[in-house]
Structure formats: structure tokens, C-alpha cells
């Protein structure tokens, strides 16, 4: 906890706001995962956390460590790029799997094979 005390005021303020906004957005997204009704609606909610939340918290971490070590510390960009690239791939495969399973059971409210 002593490293934080050495941060200048503006850097501490920027880090605090970014961390708080990121965590709040992630919490909203995760509650959306619980509350929305159908699976296809539900899958949209956590992307808030994976894009905005990861972006904000990684930016806060970069600001904090860059100011502390007085050199650009940018390796958090790796996490942002990785998460941004992998989330759409994951969700597309997951929705394809869900669509496949729903069609197999002839569930209602699911587009047929001709509609796609």
C-alpha cells in the first residue's frame, strides 16, 4: 500500500475514477447476465464488462504504473487486445452451439435453417 501514497494527485484521481467506472460497468453487465430473459438476450450483457470494464481498468493500471516508474508501462495493452479479439470469437461459437441445440429440439422462437 505504500507505493500508492507516492502517486501525484492527478494520477491518483485518474486511476481512482477509471477503476471505479470499470468495476461498476462490469457489475452492471454481470447482473444483466442474471436478469435478462432469453439466452440470446442474456449473452449481450457481459460484453459490457469484457470491453468497457477491461479497457477502463487496464488504462488505470497503465496510468498508475507509468507514473510510478516514470517510464511508459504499456504491457496491459496485451490483455486489452487479447480480450477484445477473443470475446467475439467465443460468443459466436457459443451462439452457434445454442442455435444448434435449440433447432435440434425444435424450440419455439428460434429461426429455422432457411432464415439464416
Amino acid at each position: 500500500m505504500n507505493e500508492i501514497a507516492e502517486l501525484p494527485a492527478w494520477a491518483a484521481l485518474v486511476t481512482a475514477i477509471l477503476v471505479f467506472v470499470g468495476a461498476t460497468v462490469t457489475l452492471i453487465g454481470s447482473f444483466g447476465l442474471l436478469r435478462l430473459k432469453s439466452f440470446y438476450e442474456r449473452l449481450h450483457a457481459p460484453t459490457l464488462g469484457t470491453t468497457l470494464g477491461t479497457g477502463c481498468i487496464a488504462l488505470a493500471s497503465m496510468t498508475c504504473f507509468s507514473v510510478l516508474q516514470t517510464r511508459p508501462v504499456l504491457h496491459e495493452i496485451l490483455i486489452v487486445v487479447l480480450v477484445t479479439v477473443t470475446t467475439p470469437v467465443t460468443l459466436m461459437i457459443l451462439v452457434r452451439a445454442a442455435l444448434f441445440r435449440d433447432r435440434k429440439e425444435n424450440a419455439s422462437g428460434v429461426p429455422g435453417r432457411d432464415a439464416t
Partner: protein
Amino acid sequence: MSTALLTWSLALAQIFLELAMGAALLCILRGPRAQDRVAGLDTLYVNAMLLLLTYGIASGSTLYFEAALTIALLGFAGTVALAKFLLRGEVIE
């Protein structure tokens, strides 16, 4: 003053992220079908990764970053493997 603000903000952010992990865990336990559970697992590991990043800021050490990167990599592989399993019934064809 700003240090106290940062400390409180980090503590609140950690509580929020733990609540988010709890919501994702509830989704894994409750989810009516298998794909809901996989989506919950996906959310759970992203939230755990963000929590590790906030721990890294709070402790001022860059060690937590490595763990967060590993979680992001392996979580992606895990979710894709599970989704492939739901799609085909086997992981590797």
C-alpha cells in the same frame, strides 16, 4: 486526500468485482441449460482477471499482471472447448 480517494475507490471496485463474480457463479449454478452455464463461466473468468488487475494496482506490483494474462489466455481456450463440445459432442475432431 487523493490517496485516500484512490484507496477507497480500489476497495469499492474490488467489492463490486466480487459481487459480479458472485452473479456469474449464480448463473453457472442456476442456468437452465448448458450454454447458460458456459456463458456464466466466461463472465466469471473475465471478472476474476479484472479483480487481479485491481489487486495489482492496490499492491503496486506488476506480478499480478502475469496471472491476469494467463487467466485471459486459458479462459478463452476453455470457453471455446466447451462451446465446441456443445456443438459437436467432442472437443477435438
